[in-house]
């Protein structure tokens, strides 16, 4: 059995969770492209900050890709914007310490998240980040933009634009936490887990 067998097995498993909209390879290429775009648009070295939880792993990969493209060392941090949300949401999981081991003042920051949806999490993250200092600019990179914004927020770097309905969920799977990469689209009624998004 060659490696391809396992890859396709994983893909099948993901497809069981809904329609596969990004494969392992597509996800990798999207991150490579985003890394190139970040370099293209910034003269100054950027710092990359990932948002809990999957944004952290994406940000770590992007920082690594930038390093390998340019042979630099990109600063990397993590942010949990939960305490800045406007709805006290997400308190069913413990608050995670934010870890930004460098001064953000005067430097461009790239915030990284997995899915851009209403924009409210990004709004919270902007407030959280500004409590750490005054960056020269904040840019946003997301793996998937699924539309339905409720705030005037847009992403600077997008892995894939996916038109969705409210009744659907975009699920991002990453090797670091889920064992394999991929993005699927599921109908909430089919979803095995209850959605916290709709009350």
């Amino acid at each position, binding site marked *: 059995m060659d490696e391809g067998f396992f890859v396709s097995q994983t893909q099948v498993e993901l497809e069981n969770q809904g329609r596969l909209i990004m494969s392992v390879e597509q996800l990798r290429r999207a991150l490579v492209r985003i890394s190139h775009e970040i370099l293209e648009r910034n003269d100054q070295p950027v710092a990359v900050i990932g948002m809990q939880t999957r944004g952290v792993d994406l940000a770590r990969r992007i920082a690594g890709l930038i390093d390998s493209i340019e042979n630099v060392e990109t600063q990397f941090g993590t942010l949990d914007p939960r305490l800045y949300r406007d709805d006290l949401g997400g308190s069913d999981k413990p608050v995670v310490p*934010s870890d930004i081991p460098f001064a953000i003042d005067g430097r461009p920051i790239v915030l990284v998240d997995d899915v851009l949806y209403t924009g409210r999490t990004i709004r919270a993250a902007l407030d959280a980040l500004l409590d750490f200092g005054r960056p020269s600019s904040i840019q946003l990179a997301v793996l998937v933009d699924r539309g339905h914004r*409720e705030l005037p927020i847009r992403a600077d770097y997008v892995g894939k634009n996916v038109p969705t309905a409210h009744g659907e969920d975009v699920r991002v799977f990453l090797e670091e936490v889920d064992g394999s990469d991929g993005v699927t689209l599921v109908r909430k009624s089919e979803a095995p887990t209850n959605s916290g998004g709709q009350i």
Partner: protein
Amino acid sequence: MARTRAATTTTERPKDQADQGANSDEPARTPERSAGGSQPPMFGGLSGSRKNVLDLDDFSREEIEHILQSADGMSEVLSRDVRKTPTLRGKTILTLFFENSTRTRVSFEQAGKVLGADVINVSASASSVSKGESLLNTVRTLEAMKVDVLVMRHPHSGAPYFVASKINAAVVNAGDGTHAHPTQALLDLYTMRRHLGDIAGKKVTIIGDLHFSRVARSDVFGLAKMGADVTVCGPPTLLPYGLRPGSERAERAAFTGINVVDRVEEALEGADVVMTLRIQKERQDSGNLPDLREYSKLYGINADRLALANPGALLMHPGPMNEGIEISSEVAHGAQAVIEEQVSNGVAIRMAVLYMLCARNRTGE
């Protein structure tokens, strides 16, 4: 009793979709008042449904773990230059203290303020309580002014339970008589965990007045739930009835799994944590303790005694200390003491508790 309570706390809750890789960017939830006006459960529940924090005996291990983990995030907020988040903006926290306190009251106030809540402090001596207003009327009056969390200390054991059953605001017990002090126990667990990692299997020795100590009682519940090996030692007259030599009273059942040791040297041997309790002079009218000097000689923690514990064992004290009685000045300010750290950790723990209670209204129903 502790067992059965713990079992009821693992109520079902909707599994979180974010665990499954869904976007964290959910649309805002609109808080809904259920038309039926059903009362939330008074005790128990994972975060999201817990209304009150009255003692640790109705907490599950998972729930304690959740609070300890959140406290890590809260500690990080406290380490920032800007120690302020808008999390509890618009929430009102009221501290109502019928007993004196420095650290507990101030740390609740600090915790609430760092999270952006408004904090009002009422001390009984400066309120209408001194004019003879009853406890119930006092809390009802205060609740009428819109309070989300009532943090309460009272000299009578059980008073916060009574109040919690009468009002809609969340109630946090900040010490009731000789009964319980759950947030102190949580901060003790948190302090131990930061130094020792997993508490399970660690030997924790608690020395002193266990009869009157609400801290020790809550600590024992918390430590037992987390799997620690608890040893207690103190003058026989200052042990809870169920733990006194020759006692066969039923209370003993609530404390299964703790070792009661007569000699302090034996209790200290191999300890990973040494916790000494304050001799509460205000509760010693009953003649349980003939002489403070004798107590100090037999049970006071000094450098010689501390040396019997494991090398690097933590020395803890819930404060305020009577230096020279239950603890010598030398060790109280020595390298093994984490007493001031307990105080700092208290703020983080209380932030985690307040956050959990305030979030309940949004995510619970």
